[in-house]
């Protein structure tokens, strides 16, 4: 029996204290000289919930652990610690047949459509392959389902795209193929890892709109991973801001953008460029860059760059606490 999470209302996804430490590769000589193994604490105690039908975004700079979190949730990699509940079921240690069944309900769209499609498979096979793996449809029936899906993602006429190879398509078209492949199994939940950042600027809005439209049609829930806060604001219902493996602030989109509390969120938002010369706003310039996740700073990980840091911040790690309905902040200065 699979353990079931108890509670009155069950979120579709619940992540509890998730951690992923990657051992640091060292040379032979270094291994001889020291027995100590260093770890990159890519994700270090992340907890959140996503309700059905929601777009939950994780935003942050490179190295904050957002992609690792996404990969952990769809079980592409195994967590070091922590639990992942999907529909109330603990999926953290599923394997074999059970894991395969789960994959039918959880899919991922990768950032790079030039690397995520099999170059030797025709588009139709790329999109239809999951149907065969899961024993849902073969032959003519598979073809029919794939054609329908290609039409749905705007690759028309579908018959032309069905027999094309990935190299014949533009980046935007390839990303539509990746979207079609993720959707073909009619999943409940999709992790979209920077799905538009490698696409031509003029095609990005189209992919975003397509994702929103399919979400309504297929009743999906997204975990949307992005470094672009303007995109996060556009697509999300809720947002979690990550810094060095931890969530520093989380909440409803409106709250995060209109009333950010964490000094890092404030700095991050103020650094986002605005395509409007008439906008005058307060800009907070942080000094330096993100420290190494191998030996993250003591106490609050942001204290080395924080304009408000005190002794407490250097010593004690702040917990992510609820300050309002649907607004969580991990900062000693926020009461």
């Amino acid at each position, binding site marked *: 029996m699979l353990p079931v999470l108890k509670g009155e209302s069950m979120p579709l996804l619940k992540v509890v204290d998730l951690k992923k430490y990657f051992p640091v590769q060292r040379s032979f000589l270094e291994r001889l000289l020291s027995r100590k193994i260093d770890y990159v604490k890519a994700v270090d105690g992340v907890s959140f919930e996503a309700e059905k039908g929601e777009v939950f975004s994780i935003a942050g700079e490179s190295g904050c652990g957002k992609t690792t979190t996404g990969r952990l949730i769809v079980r592409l990699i195994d967590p070091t610690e922590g639990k992942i509940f999907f529909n109330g079921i603990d999926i953290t240690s599923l394997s074999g047949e059970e894991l395969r069944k789960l994959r039918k309900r959880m899919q991922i769209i990768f950032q790079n459509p030039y690397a995520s499609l099999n170059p030797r498979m025709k588009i139709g096979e790329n999109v239809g392959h999951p149907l065969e793996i899961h024993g849902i449809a073969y032959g003519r029936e598979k073809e029919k389902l794939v054609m329908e899906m290609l039409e749905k993602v705007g690759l028309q006429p579908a018959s032309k795209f069905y027999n094309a190879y990935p190299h014949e398509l533009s980046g935007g078209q390839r990303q539509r193929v990746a979207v079609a492949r993720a959707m073909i199994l009619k999943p409940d939940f999709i992790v979209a890892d920077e799905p538009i950042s490698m696409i031509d*600027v003029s095609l990005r809005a189209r992919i975003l709109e397509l994702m929103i439209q399919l979400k309504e049609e297929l009743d999906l829930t997204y975990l949307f991973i992005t470094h672009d806060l303007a995109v996060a604001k556009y697509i999300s219902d809720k947002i979690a801001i990550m810094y060095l493996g931890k969530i520093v602030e989380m909440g409803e989109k409106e709250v995060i953008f209109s009333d950010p509390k964490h000094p890092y969120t404030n700095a991050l938002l103020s650094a986002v460029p605005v395509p409007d010369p008439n906008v005058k706003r307060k800009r907070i310039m942080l000094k330096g860059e*993100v420290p190494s996740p191998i030996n993250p700073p003591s106490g609050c990980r942001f204290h080395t760059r924080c304009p408000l840091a005190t002794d407490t911040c250097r010593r004690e790690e702040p917990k992510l606490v609820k300050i309002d309905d649907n607004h969580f902040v991990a900062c000693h200065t926020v009461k």
Partner: protein
Amino acid sequence: MISDLLRIEGLRVYYYTRDGVVMAVDNVDLFMKKGETIGLVGESGSGKSTLGRAILRLVPPPGRIISGKIVFDGLNLTELSEEEMRKIRGKRISMVFQDPMTSLDPLMKIGDHIVETIMAHETLTREEAEEKAIKLLEQVGIRSERFMDYPHQFSGGMRQRVGIALALALNPDLVIADEPTSSLDVIVQFQILDLMKELKNLYGMGMILITHDISIIPGIADKVALMYAGQLVEFADAKSFFNEPLHPYGKALLESIPNIQHSDQKLKYIPGNPPDLINPPKGCRFSPRCPYATEKCREEEPPTIMVGRHRLVKCFQY
């Protein structure tokens, strides 16, 4: 006009590939004054980087400058010998690249990069050059202790600071920055753009900032040069462009980018794909994607029209 620092006329740069001739830059006119910053904006494949490289005559083969003039401070660069061109590069026109990890020598210390550049063009002793290099690094926010470090010991943002110091080492009149912040995170991007602005005020050089990210333009550029499919479709001062873009492509582009200042923004998207530059569409190259396109647009190439006193737009609507 004598006050122009750079004047490009009818520039064509083609790549002779096995699949055909790619018309990467096709009949582009551009002019800039001393000390001006131009944001050269376009999508990948619009020809913006090729244009930037053509100014330095660094278009990689099989690309070639086919025709047109690049007049820099009275000199037509397209007619100079390679020897003469080398005296311009770095000294009078320099470049900042997207990823300084690939433009810095991994086996060379950071300080030596700058010392070598200075000594290649100026008659200074090693000590004098070192002194100058240390000062330059400090200006871009790198402490002198790091003079002896190697590029791999630097983060992306710090490497870009080195790239900027290198570009400024010889006090050029023009800096071409090709996607200088595109591989950086948003906070570091903010730092680097701010640094570039500060140094521009200090050195007073002109700058061409090449980017696909139109959002960064208002903070830094005086003018916008918008490219589409190898052609310049609009050239305007930044403020007027963002307040009211004239070319339908510029309009559509601004309406398709999420703006963090807006709530409940409705994005509009541009239908279709950017064209293939081996067989570009007949007439106006944007016409297959343009909501205002007429028969004429699909048949004839629109001329570049002067709107007001300083704006150029390549569209039949005006």
